[in-house]
């Protein structure tokens, strides 16, 4: 296995050199959204960043995709650099952007609503437990998006979203159909509400899905053609 840490660092530098403006835009959006709305959690921001930017170079048109495929670095190095961007850099960007969002909200509240400067500023509105929970909950979805972006050649993000919707509709239909067979007509409760799984199974399924899609992504990067 050809693994050179300097090449991985150079790949990361190159990625940031190419997409720094996009990342800066993403940071500003996260700061803005976290300042003025509580509708979106940390996981949502991560999911969206992964959807748009993971394996970005491989998701470009073939005219650009050639560059990353022929760039002298091994498949595992290209994979690890993409992993770093999606699973380490993006969560860090989000975690660092949220306090800036809090400061922004505080400043706006002072300017518009007359809030006094002396009032306490809560830089990070989530507890560590909440943060960990949100990140762990979204982890399998991010891994699916990560795989989707290397699997598809064009408009990977859109295709993944549609795949998600199709998969969700399929599961719900199967769920409803099985319940109909078991309980008969007139029951509108789904199977998932009927069965109580132990807490740990949730983690097993979540980490299992994540590991599976990360592995598939590595296989796919090796087979990626122009």
């Amino acid at each position: 296995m050809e693994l050179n840490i300097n090449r991985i660092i150079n790949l990361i530098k190159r990625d940031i050199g190419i997409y720094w403006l996009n990342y800066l835009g993403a940071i500003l959006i996260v700061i803005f959204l976290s300042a003025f709305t509580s509708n979106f959690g940390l996981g949502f921001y991560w999911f969206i960043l992964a959807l748009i930017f993971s394996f970005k170079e491989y998701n470009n048109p073939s005219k650009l995709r050639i560059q990353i495929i022929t760039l002298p670095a091994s498949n595992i190095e290209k994979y690890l650099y993409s992993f770093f961007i999606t699973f380490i850099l993006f969560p860090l960007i989000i975690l660092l952007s949220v306090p800036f969002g809090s400061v922004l909200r505080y400043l706006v509240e002072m300017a518009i609503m007359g809030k006094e400067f002396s009032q306490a500023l809560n830089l990070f509105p989530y507890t560590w437990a909440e943060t960990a929970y949100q990140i762990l909950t979204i982890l399998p979805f991010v891994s699916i998006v990560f795989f989707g972006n290397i699997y598809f050649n064009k408009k990977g993000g859109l295709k993944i979203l549609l795949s998600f919707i199709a998969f969700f509709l399929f599961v719900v239909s199967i769920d409803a159909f099985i319940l109909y067979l078991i309980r008969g007509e007139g029951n509108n409760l789904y199977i998932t509400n009927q069965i109580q799984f132990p807490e740990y199974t949730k983690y097993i399924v979540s980490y299992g899905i994540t590991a599976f899609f990360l592995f598939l992504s590595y296989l796919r990067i090796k087979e990626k053609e122009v």
Partner: protein
Amino acid sequence: MIEINNLKFSYKRNKMVIDDISLNIKKGYIHGLLGKNGIGKTTLLKLMSGLLFPNSGDIEVLGYTPMQRKVGFLQDIFFLSEEFDVYKMTIENYVKLNSVFYPKFSETDFYNYLEEFEITDRKSKLNALSFGTKKKVIIAFGLATHARLMILDEPTNGLDIPSKAQFRKIILKAMNDETTIIISTHQVRDLHNLIDSILIMDERNILINASNREITSKLFFGVEKDISTIDNILYSEDNIGGNLFVKENRENLESNLDIELFFNAVFHNKEKIKSILSNNNK
């Protein structure tokens, strides 16, 4: 340098683009890959570069299997695609971010090549340049990597007339015994006095693979006002100065290879020329 055996490739089932090609490409030459449009030249080049994977058969390039994309292989090959795009960045940044991956890259050579192409502003935004200028920057970068194999797909497309001459000059300057260049084109006049070996692709296969010397030792290229008295003519065409013709070179006469005439002759008289060139290769 490049060894290909029984290579097959198709984009769709039952529609072969490359069908059972076997080929040996020697190092230290500038090979011209010629063929009509849509014949599979680009596909063959992409297979050699590891950008596409064959359905069956073997390819060995510089001792590597291209589809494995080993670092050593990627450091020693440079592929210029006919259709390419660039990121929004300056020439300077492009070099800074990409050159670190090529251990033999010479920044001095790169800027010298750029000067020869008359590109002086290093701070120019790559994406704002014309297609031809972008191509010159990428060619200069490719040559400065000192890769042992340069694969150039239609490199002169989009270049103006002076740039084509500059391109020929720069390629010849960059050439040495360890370098091999494969240039695919359907504009054979652009490669005049540049290539020293010719590969001609026909429907899904290689029709001719011979050096210029081999060709001119077997075939004679001439021009005469009246060709009615000349024996063994394989192909001729009207020209302002008379009739250009290709004939079998039984008398061991010396002549200069006219690539375009040769290309037309091959497609006019495929089997005969193929058999002349394959017999007793000198």
